[in-house]
């Protein structure tokens, strides 16, 4: 399955791009699996996902926990804790 991944703030800066489409390996079922998979794709990804537990996620623009199933997500966003307001 192909899915669009979007990155924000220092996750985006470390990876060096704001979005990409990736092919999900069959064993990537949850947000947590996805983060672990991405961290293997190169040193820029390893740097972005160095401390996986601080990474926040959204599936199709809704907040998602790390144990949430990706299902047939259209877009998954990965980013640091939010600092708006």
């Amino acid at each position, binding site marked *: 399955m192909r899915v669009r991944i*979007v990155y*924000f*703030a*220092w996750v*985006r800066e470390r990876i060096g791009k704001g979005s990409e489409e990736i092919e999900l390996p069959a064993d990537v079922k949850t947000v947590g699996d996805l983060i672990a998979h991405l961290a293997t794709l190169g040193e820029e990804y390893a740097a972005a996902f160095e401390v996986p537990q601080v990474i926040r996620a*959204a599936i199709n*623009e*809704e*907040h998602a926990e790390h144990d949430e199933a990706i299902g047939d997500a259209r877009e998954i*966003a990965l*980013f*640091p*804790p*939010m*600092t*708006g*307001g």
Partner: protein
Amino acid sequence: MAAGGTISGDTAALVSVRIQTGDFDIAQEIEALTGGRADIGAVVSFTGLCRDEGGRLSALELEHYPGMAERAIRAIAEEAVKRFGLTGITAIHRYGAIPPGGNIVLVVAAAPHRQAAFDGASFLMDFLKTDAPFWKKEHLKDGGSGEWVSAKDADDKAKLRWRTP
């Protein structure tokens, strides 16, 4: 005036959420919630501004996740309307580079009585801080590349006080 009225419970409450680069006009936003009606006894506005952190910063740059930003704030605003019986609520969040002294965010909550208006604005800000996809990066006066602002434990705690038992 206000874009996007929404129905909450039995009454139509005005809910307006905007994500924009430009500044906002507080007086105009209050008027949009209160003009031509006589059932509102209290309006609370919150304005969040960019501080220079003791002269260190030349600007804050606000990055956001378009689409989700509006959706997340709208969900909080609608929850605030329902929870506190607001007659209306407006939230405007800017993005892009904002200089010290500039406006970042505006919330206006209107209600028949004062506690609801205070609670509505405060509730929205507490949840916006931790749930709305915005990130701040510091730009330094000395030209150096700044840091991303860290999330604060205090903001997570502020949110917890709204938990119902």
